[in-house]
């Protein structure tokens, strides 16, 4: 049977249900290319919506650059947080990626919740879509644990 590796629990569970042998991996190209673009686009949409009343329309062109810089700052703040947690003995992973992942996902979910509460119908549906993805992924994670799957 052909083995498939995914980073996230949801595609692992779906592949398993489709009859594939699955493993946890960082080798799924669509997650790397597709999900990253989705996260970044969503951050741009939220930032654009939040600043729209305060800036000239031309600024929208610079939005990806502004979001990029915001991400770079976020990585650095999370890095400092990881350093602190390492010193206190609460964090021992080889890289800071797991912590960065947790913080970014938590922040994006907060932003999605904000869209659901305050956004227009289109943005609300985007927020619902994100929250549904996160919920399904957590559910898949729990199911895979119960099934003792990788």
């Amino acid at each position: 049977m052909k083995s498939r590796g995914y980073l996230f629990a949801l595609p692992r569970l779906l592949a398993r249900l489709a009859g594939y042998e699955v493993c946890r991996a960082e080798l799924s190209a669509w997650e790397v290319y597709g999900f990253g673009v989705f996260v970044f686009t969503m951050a741009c949409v939220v930032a654009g919506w939040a600043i729209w009343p305060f800036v000239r329309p031309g600024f929208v062109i610079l939005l990806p650059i502004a979001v990029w810089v915001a991400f770079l700052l976020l990585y650095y703040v999370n890095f400092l947080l990881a350093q602190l947690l390492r010193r206190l003995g609460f964090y021992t992973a080889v890289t800071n990626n797991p912590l960065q992942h947790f913080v970014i996902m938590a922040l994006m979910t907060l932003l999605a919740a904000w869209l659901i509460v305050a956004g227009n119908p289109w943005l609300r549906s985007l927020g619902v879509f994100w929250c549904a993805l996160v919920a399904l992924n957590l559910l898949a994670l729990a199911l895979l644990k119960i099934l003792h799957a990788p």
Partner: protein
Amino acid sequence: MNARRWFRQFAVRGVFWRRYLDFGVTNVPIYLRTVMIVLWTCFFFFFAAPARRAILSNLAVILPGSSRLANYARAWLTLFHFAWTISDAADHKLARTEFAYEVEGEEFLDQLAAARGAILLTAHMGNYDLGAALFAQRYQRELHVVRAPEEDPATARHLDESLERASGGGVKVAYNTSATALPLELLNALRSGEIVSVQGDRAMPAVSQRKAWLFGEVVRLPDGPFILALVAGTPIYPLFIWRTGFHHYKILTLPPFHCHRAGDSREAAVEAALATWCRTLESVVRRNWSQWFSLVPIFPSR
């Protein structure tokens, strides 16, 4: 540290960016790397103007008749692949990430690994640092890698440490300068049965070189590998590694060739071997122009 030295670390080839790459590999979740690499590629596409111009001038020769606008897009793609390959090399060094690779010409790779003294001739193509580390690990053989010297000594130190760490000490780096000690050191290594890896697609000033024909243009290429092969009597194995997808590489090993005197003069033997290498390089670069990371102009007439 004076102000000039302090600013030098932020130059395109400065150590700041190498350290930042290490930071990125250990701090950017894998799914966000593509977006970050795309944005950093755009940044360097605009700010690393000499490298961009060099790629454009090389592309004009490799792909004759191609439009300038299309070559700008190709230059961006080349920098994008370059960003991925150095990111993957850092990933392997710091997080011990495994990479999938397929080998074409496995029998020649096995021959090379078993050889008592050989020259591995490669180009600034794909992930040669990762390739060297993988080779040293796979075959448990020490590899002497000859590199062009870095402009910034701190960058050179960082690269040396990275390569030695990634290969578990299996890769020894030597710099291709005008020093006479290096050829003797390499000759001794070859005679004692070791493998020497040289990048034969770019000649540094003050390093032994000669005229050759590449893509129908006159270029200057290093002749050191061929003189070494002639003197040591060792075969030359052309080997290339390039990226085929996310965390996927392809290694191409071609049949070895020799630099024999066979009655001719030493000059004729070296020129014949250099011509063989040029034809090999042309065929591989033509297929993989987007991963030929020759970030300096190769063709003087352009």
